[in-house]
């Protein structure tokens, strides 16, 4: 802008417009180049530490490398096997040969684990079969396999093999929404005993919504107070908001465990004052999760609200009052609309942080209060089923992006307008 202004202010006679434009372009280009050079380290950093690892992790949700890497010929034949069909002798022969080779290499475990995710007991089936198939010369037909274990005669067994033949799979993503592929190639619901994730996703969004509303209700008066009291007092109060903000989440959650437990501070005060007779269960349940999460996330609501409220002129409310509006109507119809950008920014911030919450529900929640991050951590650290962890992460990321899209559509433009 300033560059253009300088050019325009220069004597007009010396330039024809084409040369002027070229000069301007040149100047802008070099400016852009310099800007790019300045942000290049950051972009590189983001690409290396953010885009690359997250991208490669998310890719795992659709990759199915175990069988196609260790038993390539079998995998190729399995991909050509019609849905719900039993294999011909050629496929069985190749499978037996490659099973023997893979077993001798000691590389059977990866495939066995992958198949065991799909059908329980497949791991043992594979290892037992690998032990029992004879030396190279022996014939290998489907009947031979069935005589080792009758499960080889089931269509489900071969469907699971086909489904694991890779290199790409829908297995993990379907499992992340409690669905599975049947032997016929159709999609069916996971049996109720094994279905988790739809419930957990619903709970994740439900808990986050409640926490967001609680934060808004609590933070709005605080932010209003901060924005209206004299600057000196406001700074002091702001420190009170920021101090916990700078403290580790783990420490603050642990503090709530001390406060909320059965013989903790809140229960003992309640009993001493006679408010309650028996200790109230405040921790290891949903109440504890709401309290601790709301507390931890409160600054993320206060700060955007405060930022916007600082910029809101009080003249509007005064004008409304002088025109005869009741204080409540003036507040509701004049003040609140002016703070909408802060409300939306705060809500989106708190909601998006809340759906990724892991440590707080893990410490103060019960088993039925765990959010989706708990299961992502479970599959990443405990069972090493990274495909499943990636699929859950992908679903969570997609849902978050969709919500963010809705937010920018609803509030983004108006938010800009307010500024």
């Amino acid at each position, binding site marked *: 802008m300033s560059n253009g202004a300088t050019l325009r202010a220069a004597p007009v006679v010396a330039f024809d417009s084409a040369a002027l434009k070229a000069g301007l372009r040149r100047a802008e280009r070099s400016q852009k180049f310099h800007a790019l050079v300045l942000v290049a380290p950051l972009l590189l950093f983001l690409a290396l530490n953010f885009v690359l690892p997250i991208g490669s992790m998310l890719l795992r949700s659709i990759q199915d490398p175990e069988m196609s890497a260790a038993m390539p010929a079998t995998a190729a034949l399995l991909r050509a096997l019609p849905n719900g069909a039993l294999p011909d002798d050629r496929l069985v022969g190749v499978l037996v040969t490659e099973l023997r080779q893979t077993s001798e290499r000691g*590389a059977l*475990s990866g495939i066995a684990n992958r198949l065991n*995710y799909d059908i329980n007991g497949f791991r043992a089936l594979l290892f037992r079969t690998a032990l029992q198939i004879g030396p190279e010369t022996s014939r290998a037909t489907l009947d031979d396999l069935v005589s080792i274990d009758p499960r080889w005669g089931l269509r489900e067994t071969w469907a699971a093999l086909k489904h694991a033949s890779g290199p790409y799979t829908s297995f993990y993503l379907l499992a992340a929404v409690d669905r599975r592929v049947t032997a016929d190639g159709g999609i069916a619901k996971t049996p*109720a005993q*094994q279905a*988790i994730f739809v419930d957990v996703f619903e*709970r994740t969004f439900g808990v986050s919504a409640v926490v967001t509303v609680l934060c808004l209700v609590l933070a709005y008066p605080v932010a209003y107070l901060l924005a209206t009291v004299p600057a000196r007092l406001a700074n002091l109060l702001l420190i009170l908001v920021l101090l916990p903000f700078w403290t580790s989440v783990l420490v603050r959650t642990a503090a709530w465990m001390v406060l909320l*437990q059965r013989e903790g501070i809140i229960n003992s005060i309640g009993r001493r004052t006679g408010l309650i007779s028996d200790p109230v269960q405040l921790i290891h349940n949903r109440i504890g999760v709401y309290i601790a999460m709301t507390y931890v996330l409160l600054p993320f609501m206060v700060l955007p609200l405060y930022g916007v409220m600082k910029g809101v002129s009080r003249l509007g409310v005064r004008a409304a009052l002088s025109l005869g509006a009741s204080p409540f109507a003036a507040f509701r119809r004049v003040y609140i609309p002016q703070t909408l950008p802060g409300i939306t920014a705060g809500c989106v911030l708190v909601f998006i942080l809340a759906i990724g919450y892991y440590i707080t529900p893990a410490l103060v929640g019960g*088993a039925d209060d765990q959010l989706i991050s708990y299961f992502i951590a479970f599959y990443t650290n405990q069972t090493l089923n990274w495909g499943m962890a990636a699929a859950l992460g992908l679903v969570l990321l997609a849902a978050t992006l969709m919500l963010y899209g809705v937010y920018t559509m609803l509030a983004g433009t108006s938010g800009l307008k307010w500024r």
Partner: protein
Amino acid sequence: MTRETPVRSITMIGIVALIALIGSCVEARDLTVTAWGGASQAAAQKVYFKPFVEKTGIKLQEDSWSGGIGVLRTKVQGGNASWDVVQVEVDELILGCEEGLFEKLDWGRLGGKDKFIAPAVNECGVGAVVWANALGYDGDRLKDGPKNWRDFWDVKKFPGKRGMRKGAKYTLEIALLADGVKPQDVYKVLGTPEGVDRAFKKLDELKPSIIWWTNVSQVPDMLASGELTMSVITPARLLAANKNDKRNFKLAWDGNLYSIDYWVILKGSPNKEQAMQLVSFMTRPENQKQLPSVIPLGVTNKEAIAQADPDALANTPANPDNIKNAVNINAPFWVENSDQLNQRFNAWATK
């Protein structure tokens, strides 16, 4: 010229450092033993590692880890593994042995397989310690405490919350024991779909009273604060709290679930000979017998069990009284079924 000197010297230092670094990588490293850290490793250090270095003069490095077959896979398959002797849980022993991550042990040098209790013997590993999960409670709060898992389920007689480890393993076995299944039949029952249903049905009864813990170190505090009335816990940890924090925690050993940790040697270890020497040293009766006095864990060498301080052994899972009604955790069962049972457990627990 003078301005360039610091730059040059820095470059030189860098090059020298780099050469030294490369050199140290190529040079054979010292024998390295890796265990589970904390109190148990401190005990192993006192009883095994320090005496071993004194007696043999072999240099020994220590590391600690928190388990996971993935870690071992990366170490071995990545080549140039930085560990030699590792203390592993039985699941890792089975998986790793199957995948060829461990050297086969020379049992002749360990004194022969019959010198050890039967579950401690494996072609890839030898039993290091016997540990357990039992029923723990605070003796100051419960004078006439629970005796077994049936009492654990009795919320009328013992009101309050129960702590259990979040996960299917241990939990389903305990549910079946509480339902009257004999210790020796637990896995026979759990191996059938009806048995699994039965375990979950039994858990349904106690579900409102269960607080699920993920880290065992929380448990002594929760018992002491009354948050938990009783809990599934590793006895060694409660007994350590009794010793160090002057608590009065008590244990009910009836129906405890015990398992063994093993010493293994990573495949392709450059210090294989010394590693074998260390493993042999750590399993000799004269050395093993000292461990229970330092930390209440059981040992695996039959002679060591016979020679160990009986008072110390009384608090370990290897005590004949404690092992009488115990369940040996069936690792092959869990290797096979943990995916499905944990999925079902998670689905059950989150509803």
